[in-house]
């Protein structure tokens, strides 16, 4: 479901949604035309689950050992290093958790809009203007200021005496604030910070568990763990009898509950402690309350009530992660473990292994733009597809392997989803030549007898009239073939968005079902791609996967791969 058309998304076979059609039809696909799909077998790109299975090709990796596509669901990640995206320093793993996965340098994010905050010096005169009463400060004070939304730490009345060690100063001020509140209002128990309550509860429970006795048996692994054993041993050595032992063991007192504030119990009664909050809500209104994003920005802000309690949060660390295949535990992507170094040591992109599908109209009415070169911020306008009007598209399959690949395509006759469009692939089975260097193509092209074919084609594309426009697509024929790509024609008849009016009055449920949701009008064609190729076993690689375990080096081993691709063709006009 993308915004740029036409485009293609790939479903990782790990999802049970994107399973291969059925074993029987898979076998039958050797005769290409018999690979047929019934409606419920097909991958439905409009189902809400499809969003979790589809990826752009660039996001997928490939495991060479298992010969499978790997997506974030089926690879495991391990962290190479932690770093702060703001100051780009790496953080040693020992301190990561203690600092709450946040940067302990002076990197802070605006609690109001998440922009990185800057330390700004407030000169004495300025401060006087801002706060005339508060004249007795140091010579210069510093505040954290947001350059975007103009939030500054003055709003929570926090200023710093020096521009370094912001974290310590901030922590000190927060501590002073929390405990200061307690001093001013000792009777009002509600202001006690949850952290303190938590700490007192922990110590209370620890005491109680220690008191209430042998819930924790130290002998769990020794032969003395059961009372019967112990009694036997004791009687062996002439100690107390089992019964006497039983008597000496008095029943442990059950743990009691917390009883007062020092133990972490805080009660609230019917007194009107909330009236203050309500009256403040009333006077300061909507803008004084924080948004959900602001509250969720940091654990400190999870339970604040008013925007002026927002506490700046240190920048969340990011990680550089290596990826492993979940099945065979082999690394499929790994960067240099050095901050700032973007080079990959290993990166097995699926793009380099699986055939890539792209679709474009056969007779484009407007020039196609690559979304990557879209410089304007607004979305490019796409022509809407007219319902019931047959359109022809060129489906190009590009091979990334150095072997010739046999491809069979399958697509449901009508697309799944609320809008049923008819799709026909005119030539569903063909081969695609091997990939190679770019130079190979150029050299081989020049070696061809018809050497000015390229120029001709260029001329034709410029003038817009060429022999290829006269060509009619035929069933079972390949449209175009280059060295490592093959194009076939796909015919698409878009369905209508509105159901035809019927004489029978529809029930409410039917009407609700007809209601189109977001992206229901996008014509997306699921295509099951099955590729087969033969690979020469290199020496030393013979014992990688089970299926070619007994293959000798130099022998050819057949491999196959099947996956769903969703081609987004365009939006249907309503």
């Amino acid at each position, binding site marked *: *479901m993308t*915004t740029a058309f036409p485009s293609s998304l790939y479903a990782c076979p790990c999802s*049970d949604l994107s399973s291969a059609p059925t074993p029987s039809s898979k076998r039958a696909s050797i005769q290409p035309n018999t690979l047929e799909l019934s409606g419920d077998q097909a991958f439905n790109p409009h189902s809400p*689950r499809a*969003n*979790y*299975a589809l*990826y752009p090709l660039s*996001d997928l990796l490939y495991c060479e050992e298992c010969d499978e596509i790997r997506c*974030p669901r089926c690879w495991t*990640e*391990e962290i190479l290093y932690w770093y702060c995206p703001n100051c780009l320093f790496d953080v040693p*793993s020992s301190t990561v*958790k203690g600092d709450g*996965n946040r940067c302990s340098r002076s990197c802070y994010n605006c609690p109001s809009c998440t922009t990185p905050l800057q330390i700004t010096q407030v000169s004495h005169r300025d401060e006087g203007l801002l706060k005339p009463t508060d004249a007795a400060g140091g010579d210069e004070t510093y505040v954290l200021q947001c350059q975007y939304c103009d939030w500054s730490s003055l709003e929570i009345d926090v200023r710093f005496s020096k521009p370094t060690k912001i974290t310590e100063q901030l922590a000190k001020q927060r501590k002073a604030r929390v405990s200061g509140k307690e001093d001013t209002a000792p009777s009002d128990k509600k202001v006690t910070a*949850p*952290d303190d*309550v*938590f700490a007192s509860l*922990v110590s*209370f*429970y*620890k005491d109680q568990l220690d008191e209430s006795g042998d819930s*924790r048996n*130290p*002998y769990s*692994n020794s032969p003395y763990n059961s009372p019967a054993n*112990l009694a036997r041993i*004791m009687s062996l050595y002439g*100690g107390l009898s089992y019964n006497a032992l039983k008597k*000496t063991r*008095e029943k442990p007192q*059950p743990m*009691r*509950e*917390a*009883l007062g504030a020092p133990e972490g*119990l805080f009660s*609230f*009664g*019917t007194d*009107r*402690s*909330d009236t203050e909050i*309500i009256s403040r809500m*009333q*006077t300061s*209104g*909507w803008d004084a*309350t924080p*948004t*959900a994003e602001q509250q969720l920005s940091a*654990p400190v802000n999870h*339970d604040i009530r008013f925007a002026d309690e927002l506490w700046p949060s240190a920048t*969340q660390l990011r*990680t550089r992660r290596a990826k492993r295949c*979940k099945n065979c535990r*082999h*690394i499929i992507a790994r960067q240099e473990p050095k901050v700032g170094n973007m080079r990959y040591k290993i990166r097995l992109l699926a793009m380099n292994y699986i055939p890539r599908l792209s679709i474009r109209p056969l007779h484009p009415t407007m020039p196609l733009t690559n979304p990557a070169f879209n410089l304007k911020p607004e979305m490019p306008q796409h022509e809407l597809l007219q319902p019931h009007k047959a359109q022809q598209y060129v489906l190009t399959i590009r091979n990334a392997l150095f072997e010739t690949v046999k491809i069979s395509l399958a697509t449901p006759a009508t697309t799944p989803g609320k809008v049923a469009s008819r799709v026909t692939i005119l030539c569903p089975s063909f081969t695609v030549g091997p990939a190679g260097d770019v130079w190979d193509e150029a050299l081989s092209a020049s070696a061809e007898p018809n050497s000015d074919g390229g120029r001709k084609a260029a001329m034709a594309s410029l003038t817009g009239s060429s022999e290829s426009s006269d060509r009619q697509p035929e069933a079972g024929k390949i449209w175009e073939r280059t060295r490592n790509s093959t194009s076939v024609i796909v015919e698409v008849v878009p369905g209508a968005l509105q159901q035809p009016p019927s004489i029978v009055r529809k029930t409410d449920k039917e009407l*609700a079902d007809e209601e189109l949701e977001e992206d229901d009008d996008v014509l997306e064609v699921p295509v099951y791609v099955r590729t087969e190729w033969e690979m020469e076993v290199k020496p030393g690689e013979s014992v990688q996967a089970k299926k070619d375990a007994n293959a000798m080096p130099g022998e050819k081993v057949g491999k196959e791969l099947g996956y769903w691709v969703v081609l987004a063709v365009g939006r249907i006009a309503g």
Partner: protein
Amino acid sequence: MASSTADYFSNRPAIRTRPPTSALAGANAGPPHSPRTPLLNRSISSQFGSPGGSYRVEQEENLIYELGSQHLSAGFAGESRPRCIYHFTPDSGRSVGDYRACGPECRRKRRKLQSEDDWGSEHELYRSDLRAVDLGLVEDKLERAVRTVHIDYLQLDTKPRKAVLALPSLLPTPLVEIALKVLFNHHAQPPSVVLLTTPLLACVGAGLRNGLVVELGWEETVVTAVGEYKEVAQRRSVRAGKMLTREMAKLLQEEVKTQLQQGGNADESDVTFEYAEEVTRRMAWCRAGNNSDHTSGLIKLHSPSPDDLRHIYTPFTRLSKPVEDTLLPTASTSPTDFDDHDLSITHLVYRVLLSLPLDLRALCTSRIIITGGLSAIPGLKPRLLQDLSSLIEQRGWDHVHSYGSATAHHAKILQERSANITAIANRQTPEVQFSSSKMPMQESVPHVERIHDDVQDPVTRKVEGEMRKGKAEVVKTEVRGVETLGAWAGASLVAVLRVKGVHEAEREEFWKHGLRGGGGML
């Protein structure tokens, strides 16, 4: 490249094993009364090795997850707050590489109409009526949530850590199974997951053994009586967050209609779920009493569509109405005609209390824990308590709501009973007087026949006083609310104290036998 990595991994050292904690934890606290070899309280490692050894055991960290119908919060045991709260939103369900959520015009394309039972469904992970729930989708959503939480917030290395999962009580089994499946399948690979229920954890988070937990959740309000860390009684009602936001949306729609939609573009400024929820979260409140009124001022709210720069004004008092209508509806007819969903939360609480045994009821009445998403609404907690205490005052603890024609008869019985009670009390008082005043005269009487009052006995009193030393009086019967840190913090407490979970799913067992065989889960 692949072949070079292959032998790299064969050389990879095995995952470090550590001794089981139970064997080492005992070094600190042995059983006080069992015969034993005196344990070395100072650990051996302090004599022969670096002192780091004993600290390492302490650092065993558990992961805590709390699963709600709208959110997943996760963090480490021993911390008072979760590291993150992940909310399920429509934008979090977009496919990879779809950045329209960040675009300027994404909001406009949201679907407009939301039917009654569809309300807020895009923000939910599940709903407890599983007939209409696509379990595969739930799994996908949860899987992505766990993955995001781990990558963005927890950022852990590959060491396996035990996990604690806090679930709402009576969560449908398929959902529990999905949650376990996702957690075990994630590459953090917890060796075991302890399952705990939220009412219990709310109780732990309040520091109590007994209590009445009122969870004002999203889909349902659940009132649970917890006795000695066990769920004893439970009642549910749909008067909860979903209904509240729905009511709020209705109110806002009215305001929008009267103030903004003179132009007639009804579609543009339709009240969306997001808008209604935000208003509820930020501005909803509850009046202290039914007839106490605040000076009504107008509150300025943004218009529902972000492009519309106009404001709507609504009286502040009106914003308290949805809360009261939803959670505390005034019963127009007799509450006996209602089922649980029609009762106000106060009546629901009262009914649960009424169904409890007497002594537990006395404990629970003064340990009312109000938690859940809606408990943050200012004024709601005091109001609930106030209503409850007036209800108890009015009704007492009588199971029979109305005696009908037998009212007179019942009153007579009560009168007789109370007369009996006073008679007994009256008879006893002179006796006590007698015994204490006539004490010296009993010298001639043999020991056995002496009149002796155990209660008034000075020795007994002294002993009791000694026993009572350091123990505060247990609060009973008065209506009292107790603050809780919430279920997540409760789970964190449980995990940091290394309390062994009764329901613990082992990873290997779970993969072999599923939920049914896995460690006696069911």
